[in-house]
């Protein structure tokens, strides 16, 4: 019994205390969170733009007068559709490698490249989430806004988007949780995130159990925390209609 405890103790010291190896986990966690938040911000920005183009096209193209504006909208919509289809049809690791070794090959900042790659990837999913949200808003809201004299953009901005955002908020947070787990593959482009940090410790100590389970535990706790937050938010949104 005492043997067992002292063996755990020495493994713990070896993996985390010696040479300050815990820093690999902490620094890795910071990278994971930076990457996730950064990618989410980019993803939301892309998602809003793409979803607005897509819904504007779908709702107005039939009644739009012919002209350059109409042509431009059709073109933009096609670009957005291709973007969503391509991004969602390719594994994120492959996209990450393409971004790092081909598109941004000249960049030495892997955190930036990783954030961009995941942001562009996430944008396609966020766009579909937002699109669903915008489509779920009753058509009467747009009509009420337009009848007061708001133009299309103003109606989207003051009336449709705020409501759509509330509808999609829980889904968006779930996307964020999924994104955090997906970033675990950034080790492929030499980024030392939480997963890579644990793996580095494993390589140094030749003792896989503790570092890998430590990383697993940290992911799990984070995911559980954010899921709890989503649940709380969903209950709040359900009890109040506003």
């Amino acid at each position, binding site marked *: 019994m005492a043997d067992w405890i002292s063996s755990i103790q020495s493994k713990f010291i070896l993996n985390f205390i010696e040479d300050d190896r815990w820093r690999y986990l902490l620094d890795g966690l910071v990278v994971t969170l930076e990457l996730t938040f950064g990618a989410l911000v980019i993803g939301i920005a892309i998602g809003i733009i793409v979803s607005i183009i897509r819904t504007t096209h779908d709702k107005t193209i039939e*009644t739009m*007068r012919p002209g350059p504006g109409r042509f431009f909208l059709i073109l933009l919509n096609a670009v957005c559709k291709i973007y969503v289809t391509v991004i969602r049809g390719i594994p994120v690791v492959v996209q990450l490698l393409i971004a790092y070794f081909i598109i941004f090959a000249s960049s030495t900042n892997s955190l930036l490249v990783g954030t961009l790659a995941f942001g562009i990837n996430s944008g396609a999913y966020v766009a579909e989430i937002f699109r669903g949200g915008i489509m779920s808003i*009753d058509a*009467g*809201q747009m*009509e*009420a*806004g*337009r*009848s*007061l*004299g*708001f*133009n299309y953009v*103003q109606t989207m901005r*003051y*009336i449709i988007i*705020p*409501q759509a955002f*509330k509808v999609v908020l829980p889904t968006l947070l779930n996307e964020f949780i999924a994104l955090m787990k997906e970033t675990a593959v950034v080790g492929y482009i030499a980024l030392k995130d939480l997963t890579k940090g644990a793996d580095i410790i494993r390589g140094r100590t030749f003792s896989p159990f503790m570092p890998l389970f430590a990383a697993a535990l940290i992911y799990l706790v984070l995911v559980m925390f954010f899921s709890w937050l989503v649940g709380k938010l969903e209950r709040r949104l359900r009890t*109040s*209609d*506003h």
Partner: protein
Amino acid sequence: MTINRSSSDVIIKVTGLQKHFKGGGIKALDGIDAEIRRGEVVVIIGPSGSGKSTFLRCLNLLELPTGGTIEFEGVDITDPKTDINRHRQKMGMVFQHFNLFPHMTVLRNMTIAPMTLLKKSKAEAEEKAMALLKRVGLEDRHGAYPSQLSGGQKQRIAIVRALCMDPEVMLFDEPTSALDPEMVGEVLDVMKQLAHDGMTMAVVTHEMGFAREVGSRVIFMDNGQIIEENTPDMIFSNPQSERLKNFLAKVL
């Protein structure tokens, strides 16, 4: 843009208005000629699918006509070059399903358009909104959200929300049809008061009592056309066409 000064009391002039859906398959409006003069209450009646809503929604271009013209205060608003958003500020609309903005308080529902579009100060917009709320007996509900209101309250708010823009004309599309019977009266009362105050109104409704009592003119539509147009008295007591007689037999 042509200004027609000879008929300045005509606020809306509709000429040969057509609205075809599905590439001409459905003729929702099939050649409508009509005028609405300042201070008039024009009530539009007719069977379901006759084109009443489409007609009303064409007046502020919520539906884009496929033919004909609509002049509002002498300006042809069907001309693609006119800025329809500016004209819509002068045409309030009230919908069957209220369409209040659920994410805003009653007061915000009423002030967002004047503040954003007319550049009114918050104080100015709120003062007007509160005065209007008082007129419909809802000043104590200014902080409520639409989900906390009854149907009748929602519709009264929707009416005063439109009034906050100081419109020249108010369009109503079956404003009481989605209400429980006991709430119809409170909304009709607000509309009667509005008519009494001289507001120009175009009202699509099945409330024949309202048409008789406050209507200056009644338009009977069927199959996308105006079949008969007359004073309420003449429409109800002396209908000319078979279709109107049939319709009245069913609804009265």
